[in-house]
């Protein structure tokens, strides 16, 4: 299973990459929204773990761009978000095609595996 992790915190992406690779996933990581968008446009991932709160080009900007370009429905995005994002925003994003589920940070590692197994 090919996974892309988009999160501006490199310590988080390094740890998750190591963890998920040991668990047998093929993992790529990027540390900003624009590189995330480029990676998604370049190749198909089975699942994308997307941090919503990133500076400059956030996860929400990325979702809006994919939606505008008609590419959102082809994705399986798991939102990966801090508690500062309101439930209203999360719920409206979850209604969009291509948005699979939401994991609230700080997330438990087994919860990530469980969610990925449902994608």
């Amino acid at each position, binding site marked *: 299973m090919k996974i892309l992790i988009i999160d501006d915190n490199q*310590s988080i992406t390094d740890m998750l990459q*190591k*963890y998920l690779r040991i668990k047998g996933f093929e993992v790529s990581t990027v540390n900003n929204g624009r590189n995330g968008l480029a990676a998604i446009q370049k190749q198909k991932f089975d699942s994308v773990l997307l941090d919503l709160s990133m500076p400059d080009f956030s996860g929400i900007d990325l979702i809006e761009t994919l939606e505008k370009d008609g590419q959102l429905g082809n994705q399986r995005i798991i939102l990966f978000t801090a*508690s500062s994002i309101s439930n209203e925003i999360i719920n409206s994003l979850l209604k969009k095609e291509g948005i699979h589920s939401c994991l609230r940070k*700080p997330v438990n*590692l087994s919860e990530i595996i469980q969610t990925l197994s449902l994608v």
Partner: protein
Amino acid sequence: MTDVNGNLKNYTQELQKLERMKEEFLSIVKHEFSTPLVIISGYCEILTELLPKDNLTKDQLDSIKGIAKGIADLDKVTTKILDLYALQTKIIRFNKQQINIREFMIKFSTFYSSIMDSKDAKLINSVNEDYFITYDPHRLWQVLDFLVENALSFIPEKSGIVEIGLKYTDEQIIFFVKDNGSGIPYNETGKLFQIFFQIDSSKQRKHFGLGLGLPICKEIIEQLGGRIWIKSKEGIGTTAYFSIPK
């Protein structure tokens, strides 16, 4: 009059802005505290659970497990401090849902069964009937968790008993968490809800901590329209009660 209304409106908007800033600040602090903890505990899990066991000696493995335990404790303390701050500044949003108390209590006592076994203690769940309430399940769990954790600090070794049950009145439901612990002097029970208060700070003290559990319970219960109180007899045990409006 128009000026007064205008000033009042500005003042209200300013207050709302401050509330939002407080909320945002708290969530940033929470995020900044918890992210490094998640990273450390993640690496501990990789080392202890995922890599081949023969790569590490027993001492190394025990040391990593010690780090993971310390991190879990630090995470718990951080959550308590931030929760209390959020509750006292009234920036916690409650998420009320319909809860079947009997099913909820089965989950709760199942979660606690291994903890009770490790302490040779018994948790009696006296909630046997289906009963529905509208409450925040996460906060209800948190309150019961604090009360049971507290009871565990005072029960006797090998023969400790903690019982959770319910009483109904016309207007409210009353939960109780009863233990057969050492009990609390009568004049101390009211002080238990004060922040940082710990019974017996010296020789008999078995439980170290910040003493934030009961003040957090009080804030949660009162903000959800109930009340919490404690009855205790030294040498016999303690019962914590809390009410939930119907």
